[in-house]
């Protein structure tokens, strides 16, 4: 439609434009044709005028001269000439030439006598042909003052000119010529009356092309009018017209006409532009009419087009809306039901079927009651219809039933539809299944409940981090009210404790993994900084874009505190608050590492309180604890802040002196000073709860630098040094040296081997003979020997202490006793050996065994020998521990018939009171006294005293370590009764011993 309008308008416009152009063109042609007509008309008029005037001239010439006579009266002729001239302004003068060509009579007296040659006048003719001929142009007013114009001597157009005309007459039989000066202005004036120079102009040419007159001022008179002449084609036609191009876009409409009597041509130009002037004006007028008319047509068409377009658009819009409505109706997710006034369904949409499960044929014409679930009571429906009746609208929720009987929640709105006149037409119900929405609402309520009641703070922020909501727990923890934080950035909670990197990691986790979990220090509103355990999750929309961040956090201050407490317990001693062994090890380790870099020496002081156990046993553990606390304080005061004082447990402390000096010598001096300071400090009296107490430490020191030793070995080394200090008499300081370590290691190795020594029968019992004053063997001392498969013979001095410390001594002792008893039983079998006694060493631990006496008794039951031949050798140490117990056991042993000897007498606390209390049979003078008995007076006195004392208490005395005769002599002299030593025999295996017995017997 719109296209048609455009086409029609365009066609009309094109037709109009075409018509206009065509009409203009036709008018143009007509104007040109008209121009030519005008030009031709003028030409005809000019030619007529010129020919007629020339004819008048000819007649005047003929009539002025009487032709009958040979001798005309010149005066009369002249008078005639003057008379004629008055009536003919085209002639300026008339003259008469005689046969010689000399003017003999003239209207102008000035001409008389002039000789005029007329031979070149046209048409060319003989001198006696009575015709009129036309000469070429002369310059001047008349012959008297003129000259002939030639191409060599042309004249300006402004100059006055005349055209000579000769008429030959016959007077009698003589030819004469009447010469006329033709006034060109006369012709010119005629032309100028007809043609305005603006319009065009005219020319007169002689038949030879000479320009005789020209209305154009710029023309050169008398020249051959070449330009025009070539166009004329006078040989073919007498008249014609053509268009002449003047150059410069100018054209003339030229027409020409030859005189019908004389050899001249009249030419007229009409300027083409002049000819077209009228046409131009007409075209202008035409355009002034046509253009507004066309514009009006365009305008009207445009308006019409617009109206049509608008109408089309409106129609399209209406159709679009209708389509849209239909689409909405059909594609709506809400069920739409349209009923008639009786409430019967007339139209339902697809969603209706989807929701209710019914199909098209099943519902149309039915009442929507088919959906009724029966869950709503009568009142519900009454209220609904009342609302519809009153306001035309109802909205609410109800439970409906699907075709399959399933219930669903529906949100229903009912409105009435009226026609244009307001008459009720339909009821329209729109229902949506909100079952899932209901469920979602429940979930939402639950979520909201969780949100508001959670113990954990919850913060919800948008993607920029702006806080959108927080829960109550948040407010409780942070101290901020909800309004104070919403719209803020969680930065307000920042404690400033975390660096940029911390948050960068957090964000990276959030963006890459979608969550971040960890501890963070935040700040409450009151400025308190507290730890949080925080989980931040990024919540994404269905496109995976992060839309929210949800941060859950709890205040873990208490947990942190508990952790610190645990840490304390793990690393610190509860009683003294000093670092414990574990922390100490860490510190030693780090000290080693830093020493390794700085090449400085550090030191470990291992302290053990002397006789602490006694304090605990006597005064109670609480007093012991007080002492330990005091010790800890004193230790701390003795060392630098950077040093570590640790409690290893019990009464053991370790001081770590870090970074002392780079020189080992300087370090050991400095450390010695500190150790001494510690020793002195700890040796000062302690004020305990109830009493003052004296204590002292034994201190072992080890220096270290770098990582050459492990932490454990360093501690062990210090420990060893401490033991050395203890061995050195306590309350002293000892430095660790490598030999000490070697000994310890050897001892450890031996201990390990010793465990298997009995079972592997590496232990052997050796026998050293004991003799009487007569050098007769009276028995032997059983000495255990360890023949180590690698080390060979191991001295008892080496392994017995090991056994004592490791309780192997019990097993060892049992084996010795058993072996000794078996030997005694063997000896009892022979008369020669039946009287021999065998002395067996019993260690303190062994003796302390509750069943020691029973063990002996059992042995006596197993091995048949005289109990008196078994002699148990006890050291003073055995006695010292618990005198009453020892005494009881000793009596029990005595009751079995066993003999008891006190070994190493004189070396310890040997006290006379013991000798009195203990049921001893013998005392044994220690070999240390015997060795120097002959050289040392003190030993001499000692031995004498011991023997005297023994005699006083009626005890046998035996000396051991007798190696020389002088020693024997001295002892014998002083009343000793028995002897043992290399002088009589080394400890030897049983075979050798028996050999020895046999030889001595013999």
């Amino acid at each position: 439609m719109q296209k048609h309008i455009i086409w029609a308008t365009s066609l009309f416009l094109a037709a109009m434009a075409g018509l206009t152009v065509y009409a203009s063109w036709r008018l143009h042609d007509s104007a040109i044709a008209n121009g030519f007509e005008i030009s031709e008309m003028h030409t005809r008029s000019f030619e007529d005028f010129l020919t007629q005037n020339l004819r008048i001239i000819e007649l005047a010439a003929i009539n002025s001269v009487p032709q009958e006579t040979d001798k005309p009266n010149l005066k009369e002729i002249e008078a005639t000439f003057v008379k004629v001239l008055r009536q003919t302004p085209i002639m300026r003068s008339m003259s008469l030439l005689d046969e010689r060509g000399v003017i003999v009579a003239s209207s102008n007296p000035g001409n008389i006598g002039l000789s005029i040659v007329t031979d070149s006048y046209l048409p060319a003719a003989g001198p006696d042909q009575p015709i009129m001929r036309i000469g070429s142009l002369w310059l001047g007013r008349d012959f008297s003052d003129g000259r002939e114009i030639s191409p060599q001597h042309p004249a300006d157009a402004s100059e006055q000119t005349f055209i000579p005309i000769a008429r030959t007459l016959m007077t009698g039989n003589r030819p004469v010529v009447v010469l006329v000066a033709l006034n060109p202005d006369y012709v010119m004036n005629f032309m100028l009356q007809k043609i305005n120079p603006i319009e065009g102009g005219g020319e007169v040419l002689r038949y030879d092309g000479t320009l005789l007159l020209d209305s154009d001022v710029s023309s050169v008179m008398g020249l051959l009018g070449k330009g025009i002449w070539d166009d004329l084609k006078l040989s073919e036609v007498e008249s014609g017209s053509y268009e002449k191009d003047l150059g410069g876009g100018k054209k003339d409409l030229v027409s020409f006409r030859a005189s019908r009597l004389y050899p001249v041509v009249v030419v007229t130009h009409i300027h083409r532009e002049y000819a077209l002037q009228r046409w131009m004006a007409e075209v202008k007028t035409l355009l002034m009419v046509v253009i507004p008319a066309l514009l009006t047509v365009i305008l009207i068409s445009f308006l019409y087009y617009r109206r049509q377009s608008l109408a089309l658009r409106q129609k399209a819009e209406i159709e679009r809306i209708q389509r849209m409505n239909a689409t909405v109706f059909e594609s709506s997710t809400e069920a739409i039901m349209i009923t008639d006034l009786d409430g019967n369904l007339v139209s339902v949409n697809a969603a209706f079927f989807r929701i209710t499960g019914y199909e098209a044929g099943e519902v149309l014409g039915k009442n929507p009651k088919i959906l009724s679930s029966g869950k709503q009571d009568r009142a519900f429906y009454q209220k609904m219809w009342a609302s519809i009746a009153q306001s035309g609208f109802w909205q609410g929720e109800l439970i409906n039933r699907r075709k399959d009987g399933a219930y669903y929640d529906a949100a229903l709105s009912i409105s009435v539809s009226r026609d244009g006149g307001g008459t009720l037409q339909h009821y329209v119900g729109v229902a949506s299944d909100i079952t899932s929405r209901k469920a979602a609402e429940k979930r939402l309520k639950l979520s909201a409940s969780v949100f508001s009641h959670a113990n954990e703070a919850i913060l919800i922020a948008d993607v920029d981090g702006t806080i959108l909501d927080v829960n109550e727990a948040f407010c409780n923890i942070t101290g901020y009210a909800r309004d104070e934080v919403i719209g803020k950035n969680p930065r307000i909670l920042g404690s400033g404790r975390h660096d940029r990197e911390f948050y960068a990691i957090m964000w990276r986790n959030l963006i890459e993994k979608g969550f971040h979990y960890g501890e963070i220090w935040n700040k409450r509103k009151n400025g308190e900084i507290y730890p949080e355990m925080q989980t931040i999750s990024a919540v994404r929309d269905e496109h995976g874009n992060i839309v929210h961040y949800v941060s859950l956090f709890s205040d873990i201050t208490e947990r942190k505190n508990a952790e610190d407490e645990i840490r304390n317990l793990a690393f610190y001693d509860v009683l003294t608050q000093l670092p414990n062994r574990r922390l100490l090890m860490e510190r030693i380790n780090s000290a080693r590492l830093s020493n390794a870099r700085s090449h400085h020496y550090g030191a470990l002081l291992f302290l053990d309180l002397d006789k602490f156990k006694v304090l605990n046993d006597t005064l109670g553990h609480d007093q012991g604890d007080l002492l330990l606390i005091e010790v800890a304080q004193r230790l701390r005061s003795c060392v630098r802040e950077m040093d570590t004082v640790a409690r290893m447990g019990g009464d053991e402390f370790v001081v770590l002196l870090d970074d002392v000096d780079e020189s080992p010598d300087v370090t050991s001096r400095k450390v010695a000073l500190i150790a001494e300071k510690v020793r002195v400090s700890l040796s000062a009296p302690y004020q305990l709860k109830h009493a003052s107490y004296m204590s002292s430490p034994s201190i072992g020191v080890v220096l270290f630098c770098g990582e050459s030793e492990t932490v454990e070995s360093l501690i062990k080394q210090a420990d060893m040094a401490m033991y050395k200090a203890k061995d050195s008499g306590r309350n002293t300081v000892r430095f660790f040296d490598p030999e000490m370590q070697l000994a310890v290691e050897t001892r450890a190795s031996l201990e390990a081997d010793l465990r298997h020594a009995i079972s592997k029968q590496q232990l052997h019992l050796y026998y050293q003979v004991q003799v009487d004053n007569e050098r007769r063997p009276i028995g032997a001392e059983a000495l255990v020997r360890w023949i180590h498969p690698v080390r060979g013979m191991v001295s008892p001095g080496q392994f017995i202490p090991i056994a004592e410390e490791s309780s192997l001594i019990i097993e060892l002792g049992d084996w010795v006793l058993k072996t000794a008893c078996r030997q005694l039983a063997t000896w009892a079998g022979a008369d020669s050996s039946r009287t021999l006694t065998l002395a067996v060493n019993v260690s303190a631990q062994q003796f302390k065994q509750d069943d020691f006496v029973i063990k002996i008794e059992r042995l006596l039951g197993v091995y048949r020998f005289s109990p008196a031949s078994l002699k148990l050798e006890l050291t003073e140490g055995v006695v010292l521990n618990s005198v009453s117990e020892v005494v009881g056991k000793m009596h029990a042993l005595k009751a079995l018939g066993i003999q008891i000897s006190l070994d190493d007498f004189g070396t310890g606390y040997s006290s006379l009171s013991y000798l009195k209390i203990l049921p001893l049979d013998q005392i044994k003078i220690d070999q240390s006294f015997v060795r120097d008995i002959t050289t040392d007076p003190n030993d001499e006195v000692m031995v004498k005293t011991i023997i005297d004392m023994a005699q006083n208490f009626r005890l046998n005395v035996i000396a051991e370590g007798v190696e020389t005769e002088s020693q024997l002599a001295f002892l014998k002299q002083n009343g000793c009764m028995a002897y043992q030593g290399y002088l009589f025999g080394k400890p030897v295996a049983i075979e050798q011993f028996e050999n020895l017995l046999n030889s001595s017997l013999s």
Partner: protein
Amino acid sequence: MRILAFVLMLATGTMSLNSIAEGRTESRLERVKEAERVRVCIWPDYYSITYRNPKTLKLSGIDIDMANELGNDLGVSVQFVDSSFGKLIEDVTQDRCDIAMFAIGITPLRAQKLRFTPPHLASDIFAITTKSNRRIKVWSDIDMRGSVVAVAKGTLHEPVMKERLKAAQLLVLDTPFAREQEVESGRADVFMTDYPYSQRFLVNNDWARLVSPTGIYHVTPYAYAVMPGDDAWFNRIERFVSDIKRDGRLWASAKKHKLDPIVVK
């Protein structure tokens, strides 16, 4: 204003001359009344003044009108007597007419012989040439070597041009329309005439072109002339002139003949 002063001076001059010629007893006034006609000399070639249309032979012009008015005033008929400027003095003094009424320019020569009424018109001199004449474009082109200036014999132009032309040749003609013939045929370049003649001539002849003087060339007052020595006649004529000026007859006629620009009030 200057024109008017000049005219008045000339007028007073003629009056003193006329009073000398007094002596005749019988006034022409009486004779005219007796004869019941007044003879008025006119120049029938004088466009707008006293022109006889050759096709109808009817007279027209301001002075034809005024002559008729004079006849009316005097109660006599008017008899027009053909004259010309060449024959003017002779015709008036030889009693061929009672009065010459054809806008006669008051020249000293004429004033010696004739008695002039106060002037009713005044005109400068104008030149007529052909449209095709390319040499004469403006006034100053006229007085050039080779130019031919034609004047009618006896007209006031003859003495004026004789006196004033320096280079051009003056052609004095005495046949009717000779000036026009000479110019049209190219034998003369221009002819000299006055305002009334030129105006009328241009209307009738397409080939003619007017060349006006730049500024004032030579203004001549025009009046009626009578034979001197007859005071009664002169006074009557003088009164007539005064009457026609006063009662508007002169003005009305001048307007009719498009001469109002040169009326002397």
